[in-house]
Every structure is written in C-alpha cells, then in structure tokens.
C-alpha cells in the first residue's frame, strides 16, 4: 500500500502507527454484537472491517491524519477564494469554510504538540477544477470524506479530551457538508447514518490531490 502513496507525509503517519495500541481491535471485535443493533446484523462484518481499517496509531497518529485532511481543506478553500468564481451567498460560504478549516488546522497542530508529538508537515496540493461547479463537486467530496474520516477515527481515540475536540470538529464538517450539498442541489443529509471510513479509504479519496 505504501507504494501507492504519493505522499511521504501520509506514509510517515502510517509508519508512526506501528507501535500503537493493538488492544483496540480486540475491543472492537467484542463490540461487533452491539454494532449489529445499529447497522443491522448483515452489516456487522463490513462495519467492523471498516472500523479496523483505520490504523492503530494512537492519538497523535490520528490527530496527524486529521491534520493532513484539514490542511487539504484549508488550502482548497483558501485557493477557492480567487479560483472558484464564487459570488453572493457562495462567496460568503467559501470565506466561512476557509476560516473554519484554518482554525481546525491550528487546533489539531496545537493538540499534537500538547501530546508531545510532532505535527505532520503540510503536503503540497493540486486541485483540478476550472469553474464553480467543479469547485463545488470537489468540496462535497472533501466534506463528506472528512465527516466519515472523523467518524471512523472517533472510536480509536483514547483521550476523552481529544475525542471531545474531534467531536466538535466533525459536527462542523457535517454542517459544511450539508451547506455544500445544498449548493449542489443534492440531499444535504443523504442517509440517517454517516458511515465511518477507514484510513485507507480516506487516503484513496484524497490521494489524487496530493502532489
């Protein structure tokens, strides 16, 4: 899988993960029964597989993974201010999202440092779009992916403080996702549950935009 990675930063996050808390998977497997209640018994296996796909990286690794996603979003909206040809209501939305994502970047970097870790470096990004519609399509992908990435990582977080902080961020990502979907004339809340995504799936979604 590392061969497929174009980004040394994300690979570094994965390497970091090696010494992590392996016991977590055991806990999750034991909880599979409970998951059946929520997702329906036929969905237990894929759900557990998804949850386990997130590397057992410890809180610093998870935070650095989230930080990479927030770098991507922050850069994307910062650029969009001049590239997305947005006007009126959408222009205000772009400014708001740029500001929120930048605050997420700063908060996550600060939390990594507080835990004694080293914030991952900001990758270089390349966003391929030429008009407002192209921008909105990418924005929807990034926001929906962000929500599912946080939801997938949540149960791996050990510190209550980190979990509460991540929860405060993911709800804002969900609000962004809904607002962008409204702009795209799509269902703002397409399903009753925002299913979790594992690390590999998230990487797959964002890889094309990292150079």
């Amino acid at each position, binding site marked *: 899988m590392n061969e497929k990675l174009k980004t040394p930063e994300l690979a570094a996050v994965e390497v970091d993960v090696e*010494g992590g808390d392996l016991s977590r998977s055991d806990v999750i497997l034991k909880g599979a029964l409970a998951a059946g209640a*929520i997702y329906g018994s036929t969905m237990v296996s894929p759900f557990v597989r998804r949850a386990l796909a997130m590397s057992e990286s410890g809180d610093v690794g998870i935070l650095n993974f989230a930080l990479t996603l927030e770098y991507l979003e922050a850069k994307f909206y910062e650029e969009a201010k001049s590239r997305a040809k947005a006007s009126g209501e959408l222009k205000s*939305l772009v400014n708001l999202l740029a*500001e929120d994502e930048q605050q997420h970047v700063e908060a996550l970097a600060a939390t990594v440092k507080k835990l004694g870790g080293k914030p991952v470096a900001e990758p270089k990004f390349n966003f391929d779009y030429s008009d407002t519609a192209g921008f909105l399509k990418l924005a929807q992908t990034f926001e929906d992916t962000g929500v599912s990435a946080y939801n997938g990582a*949540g149960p791996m977080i050990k510190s209550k403080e980190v979990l509460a902080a991540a929860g405060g*961020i993911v709800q804002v990502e969900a*609000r*962004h996702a*809904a607002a962008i979907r*409204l702009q795209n004339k799509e269902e703002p809340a397409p399903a009753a549950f925002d299913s979790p995504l594992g690390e590999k799936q998230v990487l797959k979604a964002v890889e094309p935009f990292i150079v």
Partner: protein
Amino acid sequence: MADIKQLKDPVSRRRFLAVGGGSTALAAFLAACGDDSGTTTNDTTAAMGSGGGASETAQFGKGDVGILNYALTLEYLETAFYADVVKSGLFKGAELETIRKFGREEAEHVQALTAAVKQLGGKPAPEPKAEFPLKSAKSVLELAGTVENLGAAAYLGQAANIQSPEVLASALAIHSVEGRHAAVLNTLLGESITPDGAFAKPADVKTVLKSVEPFLVG
C-alpha cells in the same frame, strides 16, 4: 511504549461510575432537576463527563444504556415533532420533502437506538408524550432549528462518556447527521450554519432536558 495496564484495559479511561439503576420516568427526572437550577454546568466539564464519577444520564439507565436511552428520548421527540409538522399542512414542495426526509431519518435513529439498548441488555426508554406549537411555518422552522442544534449538541456532550467503541461509532454516525440537519435548518432560517464557530459546543443533559420540557405533556 504502551503501558501494560492500558493494553489490558484499553477502555478504562472511558469508564465512569454508573450510579443508579432502572429508568426513572423523564417527567420525574425533570421535576427533580428543577430543584437545583442554580447550578450551571460548564460546557467542557459536561463534554468530558467529569461529574465526579456520577453519570449525567444515570436517570435513563446504567452506562451506555443510559446514554442510548437519553438519545432515544430525544430522537422520539424529534420524530414526533416532524410527524406533527408534516400533518400540520404548513409546508409544501421542497420544504415539505426536506421535513419528511428528516423525519424518516429521526425515525431510523429511534429504531437503531432501541435495538442497541436491547442488544446491551437494557430496557428502551418509553416514548414521551409531547405537543409542539405549530402556529406558522416560520415559528415551526425556528423550533426545528432549535431542536436539531440542541440534538447535535446533546450527542456531542455524551460522546466522551460512551464506553463501548461500537456504541460510540454508532453515536458518531448519528451525531453528524444531526449536524447536517441543523445546518440545513439554519440555512432556511438565514442563520449561520456554524453558530458556535469552527468548533461545535456540547450541551449537558440538564440543559437539553430543560429545553425540551415545555413540549412534554403529562
């Protein structure tokens, strides 16, 4: 490297003392918590669940069952609210479709939470009897906005208290949908999609229950 105790008991940090048994009726709880309304709970403290070892949701059951039943009670109220709004005839077209969709999603949350409580060996909280003021489309949208923003904050307030990673995964999957609903309603109302700024704030149990109290009947 990892410390051994942690490996043996990886959920210990999330473990808190679950006090009290059985599920007290919501109304009785509300009456009881009216007595110490002078106390304000700090948002952060609530989010961390550091209430001196006592569970905020003990009135709804022990541990995760209590948290799930608390969420179930709120989802029952949301479901009933949207059903009444649909019946009211105040909305048409796209807005009505949005309300129907949100109502269906809340009903799915009710089903999932009920099943989860049973799966954990608990008794699902009863559906509260509720009445909602349905005077005008505008006032209904405002109430919907209040309810959804509060619902999202309620889940956020409990996330760090949940012991089971599976229950947490499920609560998170619902939490962000409540956030989506809240953003849509805020948009319809011409309000900010992120009223708390870049970081959503949690709400503690007492605040949430006080806010829904006016709609409970009997």
